[in-house]
C-alpha cells in the first residue's frame, strides 16, 4: 500500500475490510487490485476504455466496459457498500446525477477530484490570464476530458444541495496530506467520503 499514489491510498483507507465496492472509472483496475489484496473486497468496476477493461479483466477483476453517465442506472439500490469515483467526476457530463446515483447504489461514496480553487490555478488565470496546466490538471484546455471542474468549496455546496453528509474530507498537496485550514487555496486534490443523510439520522 505504501507504493500506492497518495490519492489512491487515501481512498483505500476509506474502504472497510470485505466491503462490496464499485469503482466507477476504474482504469486498468490498479485500485481494485490493491483493494482486493489488502481489504479482501468484492470489487466491481466500470470503465470507458476497452483497452483498460481488457487489462483489468485479464488481472481477474470484474469490470464492465461502460459509461458512468449512462450505465449507473442499471445497478440496483444498495448493491454496494462503497462506490468510488476517483479523479473522474470532472469528466462526467452530469456530475450531480452521477453522485446521486453513487449514493443510491452504495451506502457510502468516495469521490476524489482536482481542486480548481488551488492557488496555482487561481494564479494562472488571475496573473497569467491563461487556463491552468498543473500537476493535477496536466492537459491543455483543448485536449482535456475535464468538462466540469470545481473547487473544494463548490463541491461542498453540491454535497449539501444533494442532501449528503460529508463524513470525512482529505486534502492533498504535492502528494502529502494537509490540514483543512484554507484547503480550498492550498490543496491540489481533495477526497470526500460521503453518505446519505438518512443513514446519519437513523
Amino acid at each position: 500500500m505504501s507504493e500506492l499514489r497518495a490519492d489512491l491510498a487515501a481512498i483505500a483507507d476509506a474502504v472497510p475490510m470485505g466491503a462490496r465496492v464499485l469503482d466507477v472509472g476504474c482504469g486498468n483496475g490498479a485500485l481494485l487490485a490493491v483493494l482486493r489484496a489488502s481489504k479482501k473486497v468484492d470489487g466491481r468496476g466500470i470503465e470507458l476504455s476497452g483497452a483498460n477493461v481488457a487489462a483489468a479483466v485479464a488481472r481477474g477483476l470484474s469490470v464492465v466496459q461502460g459509461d458512468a453517465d449512462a450505465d449507473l442506472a442499471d445497478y440496483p439500490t444498495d448493491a454496494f457498500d462503497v462506490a468510488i469515483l476517483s479523479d473522474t467526476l470532472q469528466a462526467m457530463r452530469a456530475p450531480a446525477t452521477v453522485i446521486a446515483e453513487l449514493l443510491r447504489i452504495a451506502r457510502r461514496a468516495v469521490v476524489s477530484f482536482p481542486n480548481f480553487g488551488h492557488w496555482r490555478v487561481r494564479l494562472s488565470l488571475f496573473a497569467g490570464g491563461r487556463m491552468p496546466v498543473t500537476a493535477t490538471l496536466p492537459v491543455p484546455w483543448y485536449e482535456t476530458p475535464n468538462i466540469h471542474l470545481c473547487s473544494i468549496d463548490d463541491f461542498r455546496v453540491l454535497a449539501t444541495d444533494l442532501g449528503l453528509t460529508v463524513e470525512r474530507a482529505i486534502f492533498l498537496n504535492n502528494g502529502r496530506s494537509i490540514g483543512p485550514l484554507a484547503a480550498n487555496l492550498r490543496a491540489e486534490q481533495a477526497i470526500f467520503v460521503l453518505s446519505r443523510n438518512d443513514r446519519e439520522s437513523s
Partner: protein
Amino acid sequence: MHSIDQRFGLDRRVRLPTPLFLDSGVTLDGVEIAYETYGVLDAARGNAVLICHALTGDQHVAAAHPRNGKPGWWSRMVGPGKPIDPARHFIVCSNVLGGCGGTTGPASIDPATGTPYGMRFPVITIRDMVRAQAALLDHLGVDRLLAVVGGSMGGMQALEWAVTYPDRVGSVVAIATAARHSAQNIAYHEVGRQAIMADPNWRGGNYYADGNAPVAGLAVARMAAHITYLSEEGLTAKFGRRLQDRSAVSFGFDADFQVESYLRHQGLSFVERFDANSYLYITRATDYFDLAAPHDGLLASAFVGTRTRFALVSFTSDWLYPTTEARRIVRALNAANAAVSFVELASPHGHDAFLLESPEMNSVVDGFLRAGESV
C-alpha cells in the same frame, strides 16, 4: 463404471441411458452424443470446462478433424498453453443435439422405424442442447463445471447453462452472442431454410435413402449466412470489386467478382460436411432462443440469485450479434447483482472475429478463468 478417456482429442460417443425430455414436450429415447475430451478430471472433480460450439461447429474443438485433417475450430483458444489448457483443465466439447457430427439429429436412425428421422425429428431448443450436455456430464462424472465457454450459438448455450443449471456452473464466458434472436437474426435464418426447402431434392426432408441431398439449397443458405459472419469493412478489404481470374466483366452470370467466387466456394465446401435437415433444426433452435421469455421479457429475472461469474465479449464490427445485445445481458446481470465483466474488442472481422486470432480476447478469457480458479 466407465473410465474417462484421457487421450488428447479422441472422438468418443455415448448413448444416454435415460430419455431426454424436450421443451416441445416430446421425449427422445436412446440419444447418442459425440464428444471429445482433453486433459484429466482432477481428484476434486473441479477443473471441468465445457466448450459449446456454434451453429455449424462440432466437437473437434482442439484436435484435427478426423475426416479433413483441419485443426480444431478453436485451437487458438483451447490447447496446450492456451487460455483453456488440457494441462490445467478437463475439457469437454460435444456435438449439439440435432447436429450431424455424430450426436443424434435428423439424419440419425429413428429406433421406432429403423429409418432416418428426417422431419419426424422433434424441434429442439438451445435448452434441449444444454440438457443433452448435462446428461453427458453426468455420464462423465462431472457434477459442477469450472466454466462453460462458447461463442455465437455456443455463447447462447453457455448463458442457458447458467440459467437452467445455476448450481452446476462456476463461470460463464459468452462471446459474440445474444440472449435472444432478433427479428433480423430470424429473418436471415428463414432465408436459409427457405433455400433448402425450395430445393427439389429436399423432398420434405426424405433425401437420405438415395443420397441426393438438397445441396444447392444448403449452399445458398450457407452463402447468405456467411455474409452475416463478415463485415462490410472486411469484405471490402478482402475483395472490393476485384474480378475473379479475368480482366473485364463477362456480361453473364458466371462468378465475375472475387466475392462471388468466394461465397460459392463457401457454399460448396459446406455441403460436404453438413446435413441440410440439421441446418433447419439448429437454426430453428437459435430462433426460438429468448432467455427472458419465461420471465415476462425481463432478462434480469432469469439471473436472479445467480452466483455464477460472467464474462461477455463483443466485437466492434459484429452486426449479427452486436454490442448492444451484449450490453443488454450486462445490464440484466448488473441488475441481478451478478459478478460480470464485459469488453467490446476492436476487430474488422465481423462476427467471425471470435474464431480468429485475438490476443486481447485470449488474455481476457485467461485472466477471467484464472481468477475463478483461485477462489
